[in-house]
């Protein structure tokens, strides 16, 4: 009974908190976007727009539920649910710190990849059920895109699996602890491929073709509104967090803090020097909030800002108190902090790319995957395999055995981009493709 209770509690916490977290990620995204674009972003609802996600959520729930006349009602209803369900189930194998994990599957990574790619059903079915051309185009794009980038992402993951020797998320982190290095330093190209592929898999710019607003209105979501739309939205951000979590676990040491090999203690205690950094960071954030609070124009805004500061102090207190708890408590709390911090940094990169790059075209997107990322991923995997053989057979230093792999992959990438990769296709390609569809083209 007890063994079941904790996973169930974890699951409830995740399902309850995720919409809120997703809402605040959206707020952060809007704020980041605003600062990159020389404007302020949400400022009206709460201080600096802090209550905006709640207002948005309320609005979406109160909206009229519109189902197009000729839509397939059952599938129209089912599609967003499928999307969200797939995204949420993927969390069950995600270790948020050593203590907080619903199930430590021995095939955890495989499970996450498999389940989160089921979300495509929601997209394709929703696009088809809407009975709209825009939705259909979006769904078609999405299906092709996900299948292509799943391959590239898979190859990137394989390079880590070779190093870690396990599919269990916990053991992959453990392997990084044992080997004393984050795998991103061993296989930078694996990480690069996963970064690109994960952006594409979560349908985010510059790969947001399935919902390219300037081309096909909103893609598969065109006919969705209100709560159903909110479900798709939730699924998208839940997926972003999943890929960020996978990247963190595989490439950035999961819940491990930086400098894992540095273990100096405060004299006379068992508290490590570096473990107090998170607490102090939260205190600094709290001070910043307190400094901003009196400058808010309205009393309610002052109070919410101050409350945010108090919350930061609270977090700092928890982080600090955890240092004096048992090992399990300390590692659980601090592990969760580091994991979430890394996930946040990864999501920030997503936002940064989104506001910097124009959007790929459909054929370019496919070429990027099949002609660049997948060959690169193959070379990388072979290189890593060779490096592991070198390490195990001839006792090479693990780091130096991987340097040639990286160099070879880099050279291959340079060769691919220099000669082979014509993103827009050669003129003959375009002419041939056009000729295939144009009636009686003789020009």
């Amino acid at each position, binding site marked *: 009974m007890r063994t079941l209770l904790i996973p169930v509690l974890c699951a409830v916490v995740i399902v309850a908190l995720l919409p809120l977290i997703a809402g605040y990620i959206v707020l952060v995204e809007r704020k980041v976007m605003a600062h990159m674009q020389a*404007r302020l972003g949400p400022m009206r609802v709460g201080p600096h727009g802090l209550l905006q996600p709640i207002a948005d959520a309320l609005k979406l729930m109160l909206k009229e539920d519109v189902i197009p006349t000729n839509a397939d009602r059952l599938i129209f209803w089912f599609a967003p649910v499928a999307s969200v369900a797939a995204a949420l189930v993927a969390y069950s194998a995600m270790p948020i710190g050593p203590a907080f994990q619903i199930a430590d599957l021995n095939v955890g990574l495989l499970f996450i990849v498999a389940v989160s790619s089921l979300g495509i059903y929601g997209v394709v079915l929703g696009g088809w059920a809407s009975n709209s*051309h825009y939705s259909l185009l979006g769904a078609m794009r999405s299906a092709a895109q996900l299948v292509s980038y799943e391959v590239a992402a898979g190859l990137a993951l394989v390079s880590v699996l070779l190093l870690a020797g396990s599919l269990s998320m916990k053991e992959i982190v453990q392997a990084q602890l044992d080997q004393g290095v984050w795998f991103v330093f061993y296989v930078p190209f694996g990480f690069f491929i996963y970064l690109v592929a994960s952006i594409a898999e979560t349908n985010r710019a510059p790969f947001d073709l399935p919902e390219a607003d300037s081309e096909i209105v909103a893609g598969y979501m065109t006919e969705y509104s209100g709560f159903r739309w909110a479900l798709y939205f939730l699924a998208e951000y839940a997926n972003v967090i999943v890929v960020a979590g996978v990247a963190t676990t595989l490439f950035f040491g999961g819940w491990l803090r930086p400098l894992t090999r540095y273990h100096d203690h405060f004299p006379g205690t068992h508290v490590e020097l570096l473990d107090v950094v998170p607490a102090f960071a939260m205190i600094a954030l709290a001070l910043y909030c307190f400094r901003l609070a009196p400058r808010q124009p309205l009393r309610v805004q002052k109070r919410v800002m101050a409350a945010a500061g108090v919350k930061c102090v609270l977090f700092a207190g928890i982080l600090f108190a955890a240092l004096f708890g048992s090992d399990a408590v300390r590692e659980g709390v601090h592990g969760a902090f580091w994991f979430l911090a890394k996930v946040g940094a990864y999501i920030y990169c997503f936002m940064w790319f989104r506001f910097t790059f124009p959007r790929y*075209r459909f054929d370019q997107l496919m070429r990027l995957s099949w002609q660049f990322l997948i060959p690169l991923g193959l070379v990388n995997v072979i290189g890593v395999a060779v490096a592991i053989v070198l390490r195990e057979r001839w006792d090479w230093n693990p780091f130096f055995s991987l340097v040639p792999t990286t160099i070879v992959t880099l050279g291959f990438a340079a060769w691919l981009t220099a000669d082979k990769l014509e993103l827009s296709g050669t003129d003959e390609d375009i002419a041939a493709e056009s000729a295939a569809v144009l009636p009686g083209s003789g020009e």
Partner: protein
Amino acid sequence: MSAGNEAAGFGTARGVDTTVLGENEIILNMGPQHPSTHGVLRIKLRLDGERVVDSECIIGYLHRGVEKIAEHRSYPQFAPYVDRMDYVAAVSNGLGYCEAVEKLLGAEAPPRARVVRTILAELQRIASHLLWLGTHALDIGALTPIFYSMREREEILKIFEKYCGARLTTHAFRIGGLQYETYDTFEYDVKRFCEALAARIDEYETLLTENRIWVGRTKGVGVLSADDAIALGVTGPVLRASGVQWDLRKAQPYAAYEQYQFEVPTRENGDAYDRYLVRIAEMRQSRLIVLQAVEQIPEGPIMARIGKVLKPPPGEVYHSIEGPKGELGYYIVSDGTIQPYRVRVRPPSFFNLQAFHRMARGAMVADVVAIIGSIDIVLGEVDR
């Protein structure tokens, strides 16, 4: 059936055939409500998957009968209406109309008025190109440039606002000269803006010009050959991007353009990327023109002596200027009364849009929005 289109195997002038569809084909109505048709353009696309097999532009959703209204207004009364055609370049519209009526009257604006007109029209060209740049980038998926370009456009609109009180539909000029004398810090404001602008244009170029995705999305997209461009009556940056060096500011100078030195940027390939480069280069040239003009604005009256009631002699006139989007022409027939007998406007967007059909052949859906953006249409002007 027109022979040219038939030979190209690309639909006919009669429009998209929606009756017989191939196995993989769908008809997609893009617009009139669509995020990137720049207003209320409707495009009927016949698609094979994502490829455009045939296309047809359907216009008229913003038709207000501007030309007909002109027949019931006196000459000065009609001037504010022209601002509402290309509403992102109202100053240029006003300039074209005022000069056309002046030609009909046989009058000429005094030198000071002509120089101020040139300054404002060039600022308007920059503003129009800035708006184009932002929206075009937005269409292609770059979310950020529009906020930077709107920031600079705001400075121009502030200058307009200080000059005549209006920001968008300015009605800045009067037939025979200027509506208002320039304000005290006009020269200073204009100079300060131009000095800041150079670095800002560099900034846009850093974001886009060598961006691999941007180049991939625009290079080779919507190609229009020089012959086609001339045959279709295309003008402005779209024509110059196809390699035809034709700019009315040089070819038949008006206002004060013959006094200033500037280049007419052209490119050879005639694709969306070249149109982008041409417009960026044009902004730099416009900046130089403004800087030259603002250095020495001649003193003197701002209105010619044309009398209070305008009664042009019977006759007709065609006058065209180089608007931000191309040749903006006014054909005015006078019957000797205070109202024009007929006003016909030659809006650049209307003619440039005709080339869409040719540019979109074999393109993908994503290219369609890139092509519309690169033509730089304003539906207020297309539909009138």
